[in-house]
């Protein structure tokens, strides 16, 4: 939880990956679920609507078969010669004849009632009070007036058209109070057009009532039928509608004619599907939208369950996936820890994945290289130490010291006080300079002073045999060089070049800048040396050269250790030619970096 509140707080890649995966899947699943939920919701609603409409059509068709049955009967009777004759006959010659005609019509009507058990009665009411019914037991109720009957008046008004009533109690028959739907039709003389009477077919309404009552539109939905004057033919709560406890959308149904509309709010929201029967009635199916919602709810639940399962799977998968991705990295991390501890003798197994594989290989290379460098550093440090030790030994070459002291003694004995003073002071300065303050680097100036003192002493010893010149550019006097570079070279020039030469020898020392580097040259015109041997000595192929070779080699090694392999000594010349030794070093000023 704390990680959530501090989004900037660093998290492991593993957690990040898992989180990213899971969030990605979560969002995807959510969006998909919501979209598909709404799509299916609409689909379900549409299907329900289509189903309701289809269902209503079926009910309508069933209802119409009853009505068309009545229409069929009405048509037959209206076209019947026998019926016309009976009703239009003014007077019968005898009661027997009248009874015979009546009997004939009765048989005709009776056949119609007998074949249909949904028909309650088929009757003829003549203008002059003649009455024939298809059922013998029916009598006209003397307490009601025929002309007050709605079906009678409407049939008269319709002038020969079929008239269908709403559902009602038929009071015209004595002691019978049956709920019926009546179809009535006024009959007229075929030739004369005079009114003959009214024909009545009563359909037992319980047939329809049962059909309607058994219809279930969901748990709470229902169906009602309204005629075109707005009277309810059938409604499961007809009494509540009459007493005003319930209101029904009759006006809206009549206005619409056919189709569907939705009304109400919340759990009372209902969808009305109106079907036109074609004979004046409207069949209306009422289904509660909240029941579709009930379906919706179940659907929502299953979507939710599915989503939850998907999310769980996604979490597990993201853990496994990120774990697999991360494993080589954590392995690498473990090896790095080892290296951190100083163990360089390891090799990371190279994993299969390309990126991590490269990383592992690079890491292995790096570890190897570090190992190599460390070995080298150790070796070089060691070398430096021994070289410096050698250099120190070089400075205090005992033979030089004995010889010099001998010379001083000899000069003192000879009473050459001035020379004694000079030599002694030079010797003292030489030692002071070579010991210095212990620092590794000194200025060129100091080095040149040092060699000047040395040459002063040697000059006093060799007299005319030795001459020397020291030349230096002023610009480089402040540059740095390692200590005691020139002394071994000069020593070498004296002992191996000039000493064995006939006549005086000349040593020229120059300090200059060449090609951005600092060069110190020691030139002699002695007997020369074998250049090849000297080079071999410098490259370390020959370690024990002539005497003094060790000193030269030491200078070379120290230069390279201090400044890198680019720098060091080089030789020119050969036997009988004299020798030039060049010291090359980077040009660095005192207290500054390398000068370009």
């Amino acid at each position, binding site marked *: *939880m704390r990680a959530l509140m501090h989004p900037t707080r660093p998290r492991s890649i593993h957690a990040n990956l898992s989180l990213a995966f899971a969030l990605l899947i979560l969002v995807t699943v959510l969006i998909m679920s919501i979209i598909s939920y709404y799509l299916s919701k609409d689909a379900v609603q549409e299907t329900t609507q289509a189903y309701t409409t289809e269902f209503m059509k079926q009910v309508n068709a069933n209802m119409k078969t009853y009505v068309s049955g009545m229409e069929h009967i009405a048509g037959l009777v209206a076209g019947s010669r026998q019926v016309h004759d009976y009703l239009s006959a003014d007077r019968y010659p005898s009661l027997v004849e009248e009874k015979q005609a009546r009997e004939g019509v009765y048989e005709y009507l009776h056949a119609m009632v007998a074949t249909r058990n949904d028909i309650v009665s088929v009757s003829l009411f003549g203008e002059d009070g003649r009455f024939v019914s298809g059922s013998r037991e029916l009598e006209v109720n003397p307490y009601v007036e025929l002309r007050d009957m709605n079906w009678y008046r409407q049939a008269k008004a319709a002038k020969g058209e079929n008239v269908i009533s709403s559902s009602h109690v038929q009071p015209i028959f004595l002691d019978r109070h049956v709920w019926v739907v009546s179809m009535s039709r006024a009959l007229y003389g075929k030739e004369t057009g005079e009114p003959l009477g009214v024909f009545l077919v009563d359909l037992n309404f319980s047939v329809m009532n049962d059909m309607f009552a058994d219809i279930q539109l969901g748990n709470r939905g229902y169906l009602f039928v309204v005629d075109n004057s707005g009277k309810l033919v059938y409604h499961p709560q007809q009494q509540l509608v009459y007493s005003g406890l319930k209101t029904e959308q009759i006006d809206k149904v009549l206005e619409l004619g056919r189709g569907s509309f939705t009304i109400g709010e919340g759990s009372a929201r209902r969808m009305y599907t109106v079907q036109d029967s074609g004979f004046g009635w409207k069949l209306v199916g009422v289904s509660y939208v909240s029941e579709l919602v009930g379906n919706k709810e179940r659907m929502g639940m299953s979507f939710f369950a599915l989503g939850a399962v998907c999310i769980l799977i996604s979490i597990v998968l993201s853990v496994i996936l990120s774990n697999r991705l991360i494993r080589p990295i954590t392995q690498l991390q473990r090896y790095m820890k080892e290296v951190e501890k100083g163990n360089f003798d390891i090799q990371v197994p190279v994993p299969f994945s390309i990126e991590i594989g490269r990383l592992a290989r690079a890491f292995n290379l790096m570890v190897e290289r570090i190992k190599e460098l460390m070995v080298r550093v150790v070796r070089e440090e060691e070398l430096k130490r021994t070289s410096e030790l050698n250099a120190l030994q070089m400075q205090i070459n005992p033979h030089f010291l004995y010889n010099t002291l001998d010379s001083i003694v000899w000069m003192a004995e000879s009473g050459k006080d001035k020379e004694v003073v000079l030599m002694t002071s030079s010797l003292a300065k030489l030692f002071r300079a070579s010991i210095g303050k212990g620092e590794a680097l000194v200025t060129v100036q100091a080095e040149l002073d040092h060699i000047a003192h040395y040459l002063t002493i040697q000059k006093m010893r060799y007299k005319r045999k030795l001459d020397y010149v020291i030349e230096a550019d002023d610009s480089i006097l402040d540059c740095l060089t390692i200590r005691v570079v020139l002394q071994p070279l000069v020593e070498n020039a004296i002992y191996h070049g000039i000493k064995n030469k006939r006549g005086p020898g000349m040593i020229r020392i120059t300090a200059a800048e060449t090609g951005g580097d600092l060069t110190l040259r020691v030139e002699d015109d002695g007997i020369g040396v074998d250049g090849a041997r000297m080079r071999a000595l410098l490259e370390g192929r020959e370690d024990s050269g002539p005497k003094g070779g060790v000193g030269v080699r030491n200078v070379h090694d120290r230069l390279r250790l201090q400044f890198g392999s680019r720098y060091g000594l080089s030789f020119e010349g050969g036997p009988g030619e004299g020798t030039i030794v060049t010291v090359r070093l980077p040009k660095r000023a005192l207290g500054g970096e390398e000068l370009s």
Partner: protein
Amino acid sequence: MNRTWKRAAGMLLAAAALAAAAIWSGWLPSPAGGGREAQPRMIFVIKSVDPTIEFWQVLQDGIREAATEFGVRVEIVGPDNETDVEGQIRILEQAASARPDAIVLAATELNRLVPAARQAVEAGVELLTVDSGIEPDLASTMIATDNVAAGKAAGSELLSMLDRPSQVAIISFVRNSASQLDREEGVKSVLAAHPDIELLGTYYSEGYEQRAYETTLALLRAHPNLRGIVGLNEPSSVGAGRAIEEAGLVNQVKLIGFDSSDAEVRQLERGVMHATVIQKPFQMGYLSVKTALETLRGKRVPQRIDTGSVVVTKRNMYEEENQKLLFPFVRRQLP
């Protein structure tokens, strides 16, 4: 790292649960929406379950219609005979021990059902009465015809067609039935305002048509000035009508009846009976379910709910609104 991971996983699960809860609650309808709420269970203890008595059959229709509409589980029980008070007491006791959410009682007797009713109330069952109540009134509400008003309507109807001065009699059914007492009171209150009308008294048919017939016949013979009779229920009215016909006093003696039946309709048609006061059993059944449900949901309901009554005469008996009341269409029972 392991801990970080666990925390992340926990977070994810929490987020998922949160999202789920949000969705869940969004999908669930509010409890008022119905649907998901456990269906309330109600037991109706009515006066008679005899399938030939239209009044109670229509009332049952109303109950079932409302039960379907509001999603209530209902059970309808009662004795076969309206006069079987002992039987109804037993049935009420059983109903109370079944511990439904509500019991709706149509009491056959004013006082004797009280102990059983108290048992139900003390068991935590919501008690309502329909059609006929009990005394003392333990029910939270009563759904019935306002019988005083119905009696007044009958009295006024009689008054409007009565020759004066004249004598009037009331044929009632059982003594000590709440509904009959109220109706009688209603009739009397209207007639009492007219000193030229003498009320002979209230006579009891005990619910038998024959008894009413005999009583009325004797009254007609004994009181030649008897010009008006009010029958307070169906057998009392029909029996009185038969006596009037028998005595050849049709039109001379005005008869106002209560309730409806084939016999009453025929008497209306023949002009023997001049009007009948019809109750609305379908409304009673329907409203008793609806009101019980509202009470269970904690809504305040009035102490009494009047379902109303209608005066039907020969003139308006075939009007659309009255047909359903006069000729209750009882659904054909499945075998």
